[in-house]
């Protein structure tokens, strides 16, 4: 039997014994992808010996290493009729061990969104406190953690894409096959959430040598409703970083292009950056 056809469901007991942080389905889209550290050569087991869970633990492992960052990015939203809107934002993140992580995203443009901010304190990878700040109201607002799959400020990315890795135990993984994407060999892993989400599953194309996703497809039952590709992968401080990403909503034909304008890793920000006070000051 061809290993590519094998649905590799290795026993989970050895992994579940360790409460490891995970990578949510859509978190793979941005933060996890952007934060992924390369561990080239660190993984020497034969590919066919890996399960979907193994692969995503690897993805997650390198993701966490890249959590300390400052990234400035531009999102361009294209609607079906050709209309275009642009948002620029800066994302700050910090590995907050023994807690999970802290993250702050602040919009720089357009004028309507300038200095709108979004703060995350993740006590664990599945337990997060969220706050939003809208300068026009001058108030920081606590947000319930139930909008994780909603569109992030009109884009085709979700809030979850901006809130860091989630818990692997919240998902089931199955290695589907292997494929080549943009000349890079990839594992194709089916990821199914254990709790009710907007999607019923997603397929992730994980690059074997980089442990980042190069392609993703979200399904609602049998239909793909959202899909994305990650391109222009550059190694920054040993961290593979896709400088260009594109996510499309197949149902509405709306798509979002995301370009990284600048990136700094190993930033080791002070906790002071991830406070309500900092949120009100747009991270300044």
């Amino acid at each position: 039997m061809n290993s590519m056809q094998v649905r590799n469901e290795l026993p989970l007991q050895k992994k579940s014994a360790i409460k490891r942080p995970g990578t949510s389905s859509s978190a793979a889209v941005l933060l996890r992808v952007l934060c992924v550290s390369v561990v080239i050569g660190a993984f020497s087991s034969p590919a066919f010996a890996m399960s979907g869970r193994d692969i995503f633990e690897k993805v997650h492992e390198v993701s966490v290493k890249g959590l300390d960052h400052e990234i400035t990015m531009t999102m361009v939203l294209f609607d079906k009729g050709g209309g275009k809107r642009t948002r620029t934002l800066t994302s700050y993140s910090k590995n907050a061990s023994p807690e999970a992580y802290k993250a702050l995203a602040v919009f720089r443009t357009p004028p309507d969104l300038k200095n709108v901010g979004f703060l995350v304190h993740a006590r664990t990878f599945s337990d997060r406190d969220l706050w939003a700040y809208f300068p026009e109201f001058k108030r920081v607002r606590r947000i319930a953690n139930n909008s994780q799959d909603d569109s992030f400020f009109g884009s085709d990315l979700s809030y979850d894409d901006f809130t860091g890795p989630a818990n692997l135990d919240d998902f089931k993984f199955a290695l589907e096959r292997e494929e080549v994407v943009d000349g890079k060999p990839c594992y194709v892993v089916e990821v199914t959430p254990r709790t009710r989400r907007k999607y019923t599953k997603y397929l992730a194309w994980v690059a074997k040598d980089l442990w980042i996703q190069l392609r993703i497809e979200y399904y609602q039952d049998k239909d793909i409703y959202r899909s994305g590709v990650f391109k222009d992968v550059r190694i920054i401080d040993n961290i593979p970083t896709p400088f260009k990403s594109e996510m499309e909503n197949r149902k509405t034909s709306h798509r979002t292009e995301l370009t990284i304008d600048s990136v700094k890793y190993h930033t080791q920000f002070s906790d002071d950056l991830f406070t309500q006070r900092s949120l009100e000051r747009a991270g300044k």
Partner: protein
Amino acid sequence: MTRLRSGKRVIGGHFAALLLCVAFASASHAGDLFSSSGRLDLHGAHALRNDSVEEDPSLDARIKLDAAGAAWRFHAWLEGGWDGSVKRPAAGHAGFKNYDEVYQSNTPYLEFKELYVSFSTQALDLRAGIQRFAWGRIDEYPSNDLLNPWDYAKFPRQRLEDRKIGVPSLSASVTRGDWTMETVWIPVFVPYRLSRPDERWSGNSAATLRQIPDSEIRVREPDLPARTLENSAIGLRLKHLGDREWTVNLFHGYDPRPVFRSTALSIIPAGGAIEIDPGYVPDFHRITTIGVDAAFVTGSLSLRLEASYVFNRYLNVGHEFWGYPASPGPGTYPLNTIEQKHDAVDYGIGADYRLFEDGQLTMQAQQTVTRGNVDLLYERKIETILWANLKASFLNQKIETNVSAAWNPEHGDHMLKTDVWWVFSDAWKAGAAYAAFTGPVQSYFGRYSRNDQIEAELRYSW
């Protein structure tokens, strides 16, 4: 003369600040240190009732300038334009709004909503200048949010933050771990601003007098409290962050809510017209409030709570006790005392709930319990406002909608506001809105019952 001199000082200060802003604006593309943004709004309203005061189109502009260094920051928010909701001659109009008058011209106007410098260290924030504050947790009517008086010229068509008048003030906050202590000192008394009786958003307080044909109602400016140290205002806030955030608030200063004292009604024929002095002027009283607020998330709900105890709040008695003659003719009529002092308790709860993707429902219930004998007041012993807001976006936020409804069960008055925006681009959006108010003439929403309207707005942002 005193008022004129202080007004000129304010204008001079504003002019210097304006020059500073222009200088910053010209340098605003020099790098990350400076930034600027702004917007232009063209707005028109069509009154749906024949007995309503008409409104001209409005053109408003706002520009925000920021300059930030490592520890220092400069921020300016200048607003100006032509407000079509007011009708008054521009004679004696100084351009900049001042802190000396309750009834001010908005045709045209300039105003610094914010203009301050701040200095920050790891634990300390110091800020000096014209500031607006947002204390409390409840939307629309937070009972602990007393540091800024409101401009009622467009109330209730403005959002809470747009109603607030920036006040010259000093503020300091110290943060240590999850604790923040904030102090605000407002050395200069700033009065609230009101519409004149012949303006669109004046309410119905002079409705009887407006029925006199060929008459003009001329309100008088009040004598403001002396600008002394004793008349300054102070606010203290102790905030604790955590899973359940809570804050203790203290305010001591002049009540930002409008209240009137009586003089004498005079109806004087002058030439072919009749001049009416309605016999009341805005009044100002010091209050002390102590309050708490809290916020936390439970399940799918984000909850906000707020309560305050107000000492020595002055309220007006019902209009039927003011002493207006039933059939007023030319002459002078002394009016009754129309103010009463009461303590009051305000409390409320608000909840945000995600109804669907890009659709958030906010529900809020607030009550005010007025202590003492309230027999002469229009307000009942317990007054309630139930308020709900649904904010929803569609087509990846190409369409933005907002529906608000409020109901005061004690008097049966209510309000409905709804607007829809189409976002053309990052810079351009256009919207249409509808607002309706129903209820008894003295009630919170019913006083605007002549003001049902549809609106159109075009906005350019940069």
